[in-house]
């Protein structure tokens, strides 16, 4: 088991390394000229050349990449127009000359917003998805089942910006049940935090719950017809125990996989939901950086969200072993 984990972690590090290579060259091949962007309105060729040298853009691409990876591992310094160079300690994801801020700091500032959004939405959608999915499976073919499947289909087809805008319009503007969303950390003002987050959580949950309802329903239906579920009934167990402990548990593996990856994906930023509710998370940061062509920030966010997915993959694989004893190695 331990050797398996070690092997997986080493593989993960290798993958992350390849990832830096891919993201760095992908974004550096884009027809952006960061030197031009930092040059301002009155830009002379001499100033442009000076900027290029200052940003290290005149170096060969390989050298630039090595500097980038070196920055992540050991930290680096950037030249500045001011008296002192900008120190960027490891892990240095670069420096945004546009915003005059360290990329890592910008990500770290935006991440908690995205984190709370993702976690809350995750809890809401997993709960509704599992409960409604089991309920639909137990009433297969009846009106309850058809209603739930129909609702799931609608939830699946509605775009999240539409749900978000309708919710803002109805709940906040028409009914005035909630104040207009404004981000505060839960530690500062828990009430305001909940008031702000409840609608974004619902928006996130609707789309995903629709998927998990169908997944759970199908899994439970499949395992309910298994021989070991019949054995559980033959033992005289109560129906709830039969369904949850025997049928659902056995059908959990694909649900765990999907849930882990979906959560990780969401941790990379929910662009539409964050934008609608003006939550200053990674999604909003991504949009702003793309609009402003702020290359170091885009590269940094891509790297971080990809790392989440890779990490989630490892966690999911380890969870398999917890869920299914047949997977346990060694």
């Amino acid at each position, binding site marked *: 088991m331990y050797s398996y984990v070690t092997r997986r972690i080493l593989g993960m590090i290798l993958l992350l390394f390849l990832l830096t290579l891919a993201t760095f060259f992908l974004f550096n091949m884009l027809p952006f000229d960061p030197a031009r962007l930092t040059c301002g309105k009155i830009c002379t060729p001499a100033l442009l050349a000076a900027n290029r040298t200052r940003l290290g853009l005149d170096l060969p691409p390989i050298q630039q990449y090595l500097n980038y990876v070196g920055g992540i591992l050991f930290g680096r310094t950037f030249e500045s127009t001011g008296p002192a160079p900008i120190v960027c300690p490891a892990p240095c994801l670069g420096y945004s000359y546009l915003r005059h801020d360290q990329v890592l700091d910008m990500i770290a500032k935006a991440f908690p917003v995205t984190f709370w959004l993702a976690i809350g939405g995750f809890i809401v959608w997993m709960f509704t998805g599992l409960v409604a999915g089991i309920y639909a499976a137990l009433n297969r073919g009846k009106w309850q089942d058809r209603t739930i499947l129909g609702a799931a289909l609608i939830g699946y087809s509605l775009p999240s910006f539409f749900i978000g805008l309708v919710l803002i319009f109805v709940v906040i503007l028409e009914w005035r049940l909630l104040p207009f969303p404004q981000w505060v950390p839960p530690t500062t003002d828990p009430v305001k935090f909940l008031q702000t987050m409840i609608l974004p959580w619902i928006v996130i949950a609707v789309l995903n719950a629709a998927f998990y309802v169908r997944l759970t329903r199908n899994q439970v239906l499949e395992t309910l017809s*298994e*021989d*070991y579920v*019949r*054995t*559980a*009934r*033959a*033992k*005289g*167990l*109560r*129906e709830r125990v039969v369904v949850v402990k*025997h049928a659902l*548990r*056995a059908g959990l593996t694909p649900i765990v996989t999907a849930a882990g990856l979906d959560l990780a994906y969401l941790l990379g930023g929910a662009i539409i939901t964050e934008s609608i509710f003006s939550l200053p998370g990674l999604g909003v940061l991504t949009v702003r950086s793309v609009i402003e062509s702020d290359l170091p920030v885009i590269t940094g966010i891509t790297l971080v969200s990809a790392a989440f997915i890779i990490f989630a993959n490892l966690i999911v694989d380890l969870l398999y072993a917890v*869920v*299914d*004893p*047949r997977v346990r190695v060694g």
Partner: protein
Amino acid sequence: MIGRLTRTVDRISTTTTTERPFLSVNDVSVQFPTEDGLVQAVDHVSFNLEKGKTLAIVGESGSGKSVTAQAIMGLIDRKTAKVSGEIWLNNVDLVSLTTAEMQALRGKEVAMIFQDPMSSLHPFYRVGDQIVEAMTAHRKVNPREAKREVVDMFKRVGIPAAERRVDAYPHQLSGGMRQRVMIAMALINSPELLIADEPTTALDVTVQAQILELIQDLQREFGTTVIMITHDLGIVADVADEVAVMYGARIVEMAPTETIFNEPEMPYTLGLLASIPRMDMEAGSRLQPIPGNPPSPIRLPKGCVFAPRCQYAAMTNGLSETVRPELLPAGPDHFVRCHLPAATRQKIASDVLDVLAAGQRQ
């Protein structure tokens, strides 16, 4: 509340008025409505079984033998199927019980061993825990005592290294061991009635005999009544006191085991006997299969259900085409569902048995 009280009173009064056999299946039918039509899986099946005896229910796939067993276990989903008739076990009618009442009996007074031990155990739980679960569903036991009881039961069903095996997962055990685990699970609450649904079909031949012997030993030890469902007449000869042959959702012949083997009367039973391979058969001689296939349970033939495959159907003067035969007495404890006159049936049977015996002698 009142309903429950009167039902209990009913039960008590029946106990005092009539003396029923330990298990009395009376006119039981199971119907599954499907999109293609009504499937009559079990059609007016009746039989009695005395305590401690073994009944074998024999028949092809789809003959209704497993559904009969599931009806006794109360495992048929009443939402998708209709069960009618009476199943009296210890003077309680199982068909009339509520879901909760049946749950309390299932696994405690009636237990079942299934065909495929590979898929009948939950792959995610330790086998010991799965058996403890069967115990705690019916009685209070503290965990340590429960485990000790499981270890004891494992030793009784012949699982070596029982202390270690209780902590194993099903995939770590062989097929034979898993079936022993299933038997241990079925017997853990000392049920009075044990239903074994083709318990050896999925096992290696060498293990089959061990498992059958085990079931018989345990039956003697615990005084359990057994219903053995099988399509293997070899097993029937070994274990059964009585035999019910099923075909097309009905019992077509029922008798003590010796009668079934020595004086069978129904042509289908004869066909089954003729199709058993024997060690003493001459090499190269052919088995005699029953021609044709079992009827579709949705469109059963109008007359005798077996008539289309019966080579003696012509001898009934067309009766078998139009009239369903009844299950009628043909001797002491012997019931046959056949239009052929008794003398004709007996003649045919003795001829067939003679041919089989001649085949052995050659």
